[in-house]
């Protein structure tokens, strides 16, 4: 061992004990049995996995995949346009735009969600405006619903999409755009045939960065979704904190990890080809 290898040692030990070991424990617990009063009994069985793929739980998984995909697509659409607008703004404005986008992102998630709840809540501007204009509404449906979850997810994860894209748009060779303009191409044609094909790598990495955390999201659906919006992250959390069924919770997380790893693997293959 060389001196430089000793520098790696502390981080390696830390990773082994607090990242690898915990994951292996979860994998092991997923094959255990739930004790009578919660807790774990080390009786090996596959039945947790049987339950994971039961209709109710598989349905929640499907819903979560759908929502994460929707979030990713919306972020892609908005992200491309915003990054394009940011990168082609006058040079002295660009750092300001980056900061304007980073600020809410750096602001604590709980605070951002709190602000959204103030906005849609009783006595909030939205409800006041609706009742002032005489439109009928259900105050409860307004404060907790799926659209709010999507809004929360998109505004939370958009920066993960915009920053890689902005980096790519920044470096883009705009002579190609000028050439396309000279040849009479419109803005959309330029975007789809000149710019985007050159940004594939950033598009893939942005999508991954949005999709992964979106699939495991717990806080946003918990606070903005109400009881009806149950997502995979909430399901897992319930098993750990409320039902005290750790083996089932572990099996659910193993399935989520496997799905994410598969997606990362496939996307990386495609991304490296791009």
């Amino acid at each position, binding site marked *: 061992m060389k001196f430089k290898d*000793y520098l790696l*040692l502390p981080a390696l030990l830390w990773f082994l004990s607090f990242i690898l070991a915990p994951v292996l424990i979860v994998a092991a617990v997923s094959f255990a049995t739930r004790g009578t009063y919660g807790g774990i009994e080390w009786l090996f069985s596959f039945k947790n996995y049987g339950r994971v793929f039961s209709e109710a739980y598989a349905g929640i998984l499907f819903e979560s995949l759908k929502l994460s995909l929707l979030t990713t697509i919306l972020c892609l659409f908005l992200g491309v346009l915003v990054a394009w607008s940011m990168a082609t703004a006058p040079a002295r404005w660009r750092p300001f735009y980056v900061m304007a986008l980073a600020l809410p992102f750096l602001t604590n998630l*709980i605070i951002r969600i709190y602000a959204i*709840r103030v906005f849609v809540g009783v006595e909030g501007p939205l409800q006041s405006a609706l009742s002032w204009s005489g439109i009928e509404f259900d105050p409860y449906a307004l404060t907790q619903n799926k659209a709010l979850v999507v809004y929360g997810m998109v505004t939370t994860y958009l920066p993960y999409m915009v920053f890689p894209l902005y980096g790519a748009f920044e470096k883009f060779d705009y002579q190609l755009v000028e050439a396309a303009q000279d040849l009479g191409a419109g803005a959309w044609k330029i975007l789809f045939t000149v710019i985007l094909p050159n940004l594939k790598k950033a598009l893939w990495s942005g999508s991954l960065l949005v999709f992964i955390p979106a699939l495991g*999201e717990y806080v946003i659906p918990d606070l903005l979704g109400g009881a009806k919006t149950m997502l995979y992250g909430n399901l897992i959390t319930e098993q750990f904190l409320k039902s005290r069924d750790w083996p089932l919770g572990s099996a659910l997380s193993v399935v*989520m990890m496997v799905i994410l790893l598969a997606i990362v693997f496939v996307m990386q293959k495609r991304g490296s080809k791009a």
Partner: protein
Amino acid sequence: MKPVERSRPAAPLFARCVHWILLFFLYLPIAVMILGALVVKEAGGTSFSLRWFAEVLSESAWMQSLLNSVLVAGAASFLATLLGTAAAMGLRSNEKTWRYAVSALSLTSLVFPEIVFALSLLSLFFLIKMELSLWTVIIAHVSFSISYVMMTVGARLTALDVSYEDAARDLGASSWQIQTSILLPLLKPAISAGFILSFLLSFDDFLITYFVNGAGQDTLPVKLYTAMKMGVSPKLNALSSLMFLMTLLITIFFFRSSSFRVLFEGSRRKNGSSAEEKNL
């Protein structure tokens, strides 16, 4: 001399509109929240005052959780910076065996969904019978921060020319001397950027803290979450507004500091920068 910027045809009006509408929707709820913190509704009508701010600042429970947050973030980012910087410098070596394990593990921790991270640590602490406390929170925060420090410092390291080390070696410096008296001073801005980043990440973290913190030892985000479950109140508005303003100040400071520029330059130089990029 200011480098000349090449022309960049502006994005179409549609893209710029989307950009502005998005910014509007990002900031609208925050603006409403701050306004709500400033308004006092009384029998005699409404007026503006800083009353809610004063009230929330004088509550010791909130100040205790702020103190917890600062303690955790300080300790966690210090440890993470130490471990992460050492690891990033170690990765510059050519030995493949160790490198591979460390960089693979650091990448895993980056793509891990937070929820899995949180509950796997909870399981670990449960199995080794470690009582949940601020210590378990610190351990958890260090675990996810190390990778970010490695990334920040690593980006700067790849931008550094190997000739610095070669020159030092030719002059007879030992491996230890090269690391401490050549590389460390050159890495200083990146190290402080890594520290600030992990401090912010730790200070902001809700989910992982929520899982592994001891009873009655809430950090600010966790306490805010429980209070918010009860409903919306002007006092909470005031507290949240204060936290937003704090983030604003830190962000401005961070964007103006050299540490931040290092973050960007590090990755830029790798891709062969042009004069125009340095202008940013």
